[in-house]
């Protein structure tokens, strides 16, 4: 399935789910709109646009959609996937291992995957983690998680 079709279906499905949630809120009346009034309008709009986008993606413009979908070669795709996985891992591990270690690990692993040598990746990781920790935790007074240490 092309990305175009995924986007269209996701909009339609997301709009429908949002509508269900919005209808659970107090709607009020036209003269005294409640908390659910605006979200309901937005959800109806999202469903309508999702429907139009789905029709276009499946019936009207399938050729355009297939032209747009440019499959990424395996190597660049794996670099992006690794970057996203490392981003998610950073978010998940930050409260447990603290900022300095999470940052150093993130930089070292990503640089290594993007083609840097082991020494360069390790050196950049230590310097960037220490530098950013000093900048944010000491100079800007941001309480960054320190982990169990």
């Amino acid at each position, binding site marked *: 399935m092309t*990305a*175009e079709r995924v*986007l*269209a279906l996701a*909009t339609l499905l*997301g709009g429908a789910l*949002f509508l269900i*949630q919005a209808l659970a*809120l*107090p709607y009020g*009346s*036209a*003269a*005294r*709109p409640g*908390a*659910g*009034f*605006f*979200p309901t309008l*937005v*959800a109806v709009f*999202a469903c309508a*646009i*999702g429907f*139009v*986008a789905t029709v276009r993606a499946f019936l009207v413009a399938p050729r355009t959609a297939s032209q*747009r979908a*440019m499959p*990424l070669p395996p*190597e*660049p*795709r794996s*670099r*992006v996937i690794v*970057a*996203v996985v490392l*981003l*998610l891992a*950073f*978010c998940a591990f*930050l409260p447990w291992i603290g*900022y300095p270690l999470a*940052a150093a690990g993130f*930089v070292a692993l*990503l*640089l290594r995957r*993007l*083609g*840097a040598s082991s020494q360069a990746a390790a050196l*950049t990781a230590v310097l*960037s*983690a220490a530098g*950013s920790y000093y900048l*944010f935790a000491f100079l*800007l*007074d*941001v*309480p*960054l998680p320190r982990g169990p240490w």
Partner: protein
Amino acid sequence: MGPLEGLAYGFAVALTPTNLLACFVGVLVGTVVGVLPGIGPVGAMALLLPSTFALHPATALIMLAGIYYGAMYGGSTTSILVNVPGEAGSVVTLLDGYQMTRKGRAGAALAVAAVGSFVAGTVGVIGIMFAASWLADVAVRFGPPEYFAITLGGMLLLSRLSSTSLTHAFVLVAVGLAVGTVGMDPVSALRRFTFGSVQLAQGVELVPVIMGLYGVAEVLILAEEGAVRAHVASVRLRELLPTRAEWQRSAAPIARGSVVGFLTGLIPGPAAVLSTFIAYALEKRVSKTPEKFGTGMIEGVAAPESANNGATAGAMVPLLSLGIPFSPATAILLGALVIHGLQPGPLMISQRPEIFWGFVASMYIGNFLLLILNLPLVGVFVSVLRLPQHVLATLVLLLCLVGAYSLNNSLLDLWILVIFGVFGYALRKLRVDPSPLVVALVLGPMMEKTLRQSLFITRGSIVDLLSRPLTAVILAVPVAVLIGPPLLRLLRRRGRPAEVGAA
């Protein structure tokens, strides 16, 4: 306070050592950001927003705006020298700019681009002085229905004018509006779509969304390429002087580009990009040798480079006078003001003149700083491109992560950053411009509030709301822009068989 008196007061504010330093740092960072392909001004502004929390609001605004218009300057450098636009507003410049480099006239192209940007910045500042004051005077009379019409009209115009298809733009508007409803209801304080999360009750923070859509997404694109170094042409200082003929040919395009840019900046949409295309097309139309455009015509550099800087200034008018941002960059500036407890709008000029006039004067100083910085230091800025892309990408990602966390010391902001980063990457692969989402997210809560207030005033009558004279006028323009082109196409299609039949 009149415009000239206000500007004098503004210079007194902007020339304090702190504000001067903030302006210098802003334009310097902006130029570097503009030079680097992949990291746009919006991502850089979002990235540096947390570092401005400790500053005075005027100082923060001066620095962030400096990044914005500094990036417009810097973007031209890579377009001209490397045939790679530093940011979207410099795409058109490479058509003739790079051809000039191939002919050995890179220095002249860079000098004309810098002078054109300076002139446009100056024209823009004069425009802001008068247009923002005038609009603010008018806007004092606006009520909720007019503000609702402006937000709705702005979104419709942006959707039509963005570089995306109308369907895609509307999908993004829907997503932005939906995300904007998360959190506490502004009237009843009821929690909406928070799923029990205390942090979500405060709503979805704008900055991680922008950092994700512009910063993380752009870096993921860079990550696709792995370890790459750009090949950069070198420029000597003595080559920077354009010939007398080149100056003469550039004067009128700079003037036209400045005005076109400023006026385009007033319209909701990707003004900095749009203005360059309009200015380039205009130059081609008025030129006696339009066929030579694309072969290294200096007019093709002068006009778009002036236009993108003029548009940057024009985009400040609705932000400063109405408190309504129509682009992601001005949305960040609004976010910065709100974080500092200020609400831009018609009353800000009279109630906080040091912010408004200090900001306007700083733009003039910033443009002057850019002129004296850019020409002699062009070699230094270009050498930034020699930094390996994979190192740059990794460091920017780390700064995005720590920057997003530092906003509220919240893990939720980190997750939002990553989610919108992946979403932004997908949009880029589909060649969809994410700006309708950002603008809808910013304008959504304002739209909801003004719609509910308006319906309360009109006792629930949509007809009464839309038939108010000012509301009708404000909405007529975007509606005409939205339905005009398809209507014309339909009429032409209907006319064609009749013509064929008659023939």
